[in-house]
């Protein structure tokens, strides 16, 4: 007979061990999945995890890892603060879009003037756009008690419609022969979020993500506000006694996650993506939720988790092309990662006991 016994305190050892264990189990079960569909399992795993880092063309993939991981980490850091406090912003994808639209809009408004002040203004506009979009669920929750999960999620679809409208209307490239999509900001030097050192993939978004990790770490471990965030999530009554104002905390958490998502969108649209287009958003806002939990809502964990997710994306695409793995198999593989992590979470909060159950 196997029983589960609740731990009085979540186990520290297990909370560190479970992500590693989850990755290992995913690799094993993933290998079984790949061999079941007739692909070489070891080669597939090697292609996904090894080749982007140490393979023949690693010189190209390593910078790509930064480009892919940066928006994930930047968004996930913001989300994790809210998640810790019990504020559930599920709409980062929408804030990411609005951030990109506001930032790109500012940049395009200056076209073709060149000036060093343009990119900083775009960065501010991007953060402001994301913040503003997140304030909608925030204020509705504070004033009317609406559910921020639903409102923030629904606003993603509103943002997508706005994105389509902007790509087809206001921000459409006037020299684009009537096709949708804005001018390419990569060809507008003052607005281009270029690589700081060519060939390294290191653009402002990557720097911002690293700074966000450090700030979040300091906030959570050294700052009163960080203490309040943790307290609100773990013990609401205690938080109230400690003088935490729930409404201010809600607005802060949604605001900071919105602003960071907006920044991520701006850095993406002004850099790697280059233009506002109908399909600009590719789900970073949703994947970041996975990254946040995979990283145990801890800033350093999120950094590692973002890198790992980026690795599976890039390695997954290589495996598709080189081994003919279907993209659905890669997605299952990525899904397994979260599944096993959540399943193993049980071990953090519960102890498994073997033997007869005692009389109740």
């Amino acid at each position, binding site marked *: 007979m196997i029983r589960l016994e609740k731990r009085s305190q979540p186990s520290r050892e297990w909370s560190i061990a479970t992500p590693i264990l989850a990755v290992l189990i995913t690799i094993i079960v993933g290998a079984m999945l790949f061999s079941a569909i007739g692909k070489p399992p070891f080669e597939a795993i090697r292609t996904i995890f090894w080749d982007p880092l140490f393979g023949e*063309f690693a010189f*190209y*993939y390593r910078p*790509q890892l930064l*480009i*892919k991981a940066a928006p994930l980490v930047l968004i996930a850091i913001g989300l994790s603060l809210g998640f810790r406090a019990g504020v559930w912003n599920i709409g980062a994808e929408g804030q990411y879009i609005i951030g990109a639209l506001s930032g790109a809009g500012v940049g395009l408004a200056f076209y073709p003037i060149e000036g060093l002040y343009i990119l900083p203004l775009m960065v501010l506009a991007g953060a402001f756009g994301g913040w503003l979009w997140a304030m909608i669920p925030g204020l509705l929750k504070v004033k009317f008690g609406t559910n921020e999960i639903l409102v923030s999620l629904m606003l993603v679809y509103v943002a997508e*419609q706005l994105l*389509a*409208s902007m790509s*087809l*209307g*206001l921000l459409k490239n006037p020299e684009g*022969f*009537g*096709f*949708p*999509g804005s001018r*390419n900001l*990569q060809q507008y030097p003052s607005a281009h979020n270029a690589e700081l050192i060519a060939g390294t993939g290191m653009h402002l978004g990557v720097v911002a993500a690293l700074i966000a990790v450090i700030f979040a770490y300091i906030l959570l471990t050294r700052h009163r506000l960080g203490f309040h965030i943790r307290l609100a999530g773990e013990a609401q009554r205690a938080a109230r006694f400690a003088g935490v104002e729930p409404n201010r905390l809600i607005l802060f958490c949604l605001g900071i996650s919105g602003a960071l998502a907006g920044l991520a969108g701006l850095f*993406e649209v002004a850099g*790697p*993506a*280059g*233009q506002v*287009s*109908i*399909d*600009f958003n*590719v789900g970073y806002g949703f994947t970041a939720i996975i990254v946040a939990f995979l990283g145990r809502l801890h800033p350093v964990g999120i950094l590692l988790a973002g890198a790992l997710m980026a690795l599976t*994306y*890039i390695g997954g*695409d*290589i495996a*598709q*092309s*080189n081994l*003919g793995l*279907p*993209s*659905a198999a890669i997605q299952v593989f990525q899904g397994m990662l979260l599944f096993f992590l959540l399943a193993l979470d049980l071990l953090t909060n519960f102890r498994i006991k073997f033997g007869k159950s005692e009389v109740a």
Partner: protein
Amino acid sequence: MKISNLLTGVTMTLALSTGAMADPTKVGFVYVGPVGDGGWTYEHNQGRLAVEEKFGDDVETVFVESVAEGPDAERVMTQMALEGADLIFTTSFGYMDQTINVAKKFPNVKFEHATGYKRADNVSTYSARFYQGRAVQGHIAGNLTESNIIGYIASFPIPEVIRGINSAYIHAKKANPDVEFKIIWAYTWFDPAKEADAAKALIEQGADVILQHTDSTAPQAAAQNAGDVYTFGQASDMIEYAPNPRVSSIIDNWSPYYIARTQAVIDGTWASVDTWDGISTGMVKIGEITDAVPADVKAEALAMIENMRTGDYHPFTGPLKKQDGSDWLADGETADDGTLAGMSFYVEGLTDTIPE
């Protein structure tokens, strides 16, 4: 001197030919959707399979599906080029700038971008004249409708889609002067749920023929449930809904083009071109017109297809006016490709406004 020259020539030829034998031509395909979407990407993948079948061991193909437009696409193209691809087909309009970027870095790799307008020494563009198929659909639809209301599920207000609406409307109107188009913008290329909703809404508004510029079979299913509603297959034949509601279809047939371009790379004759082919080369195929269509209408449709194949008929032939009443084409004048490629206006008679 002469002999040594000759010998060098021979060894070089040998080296080249053995090189060619040991190393098959590698062709990469970047897809925007899954190969099982039953529409756009499915047909591009059929083209890839046709290349494999035609060249056998001389050609190796690779593909990556569901590649998001943006940095992901750029990475996937770069990866294919790094891994030795000689020719890469990028099959979505949204890959345009990425294709140009990557092509700059790999001047020896040839690129083919579908539906775009930016070319380079090693970047060709290709697209199909689907508006020819739309003309046939319009003619059949105008004849079939009894409510005189034709529904149109449009995807995005881009020239490609607007051209299709115009072409269908011109020919429906010619067949039936009382016809009216109701257009719903779905803002998607492939979303069965949204497409089904759009189809139902159009049917409720009285449409008894539905045209679609989206790729799923959801509108066909909705029409089947409603009964007495006709539809046309889009991108793929969608023959599983024949003979009714699906009465015909427009099929994207990329195989001949993909085979020809691969052959050109093998022969070393590849050059950057802008291809816009239609019924004449088989890039656009009209799926079987079923018996749900009256025999005389079917005969007229077939004659129209034949005339477009031979080039005797152009779907945009004057006299035609723009929606605002201004003159566009004089009597007998045909539209030039430039205007068609960037078409952003409706023809006279359409009541919808192009959204922004």
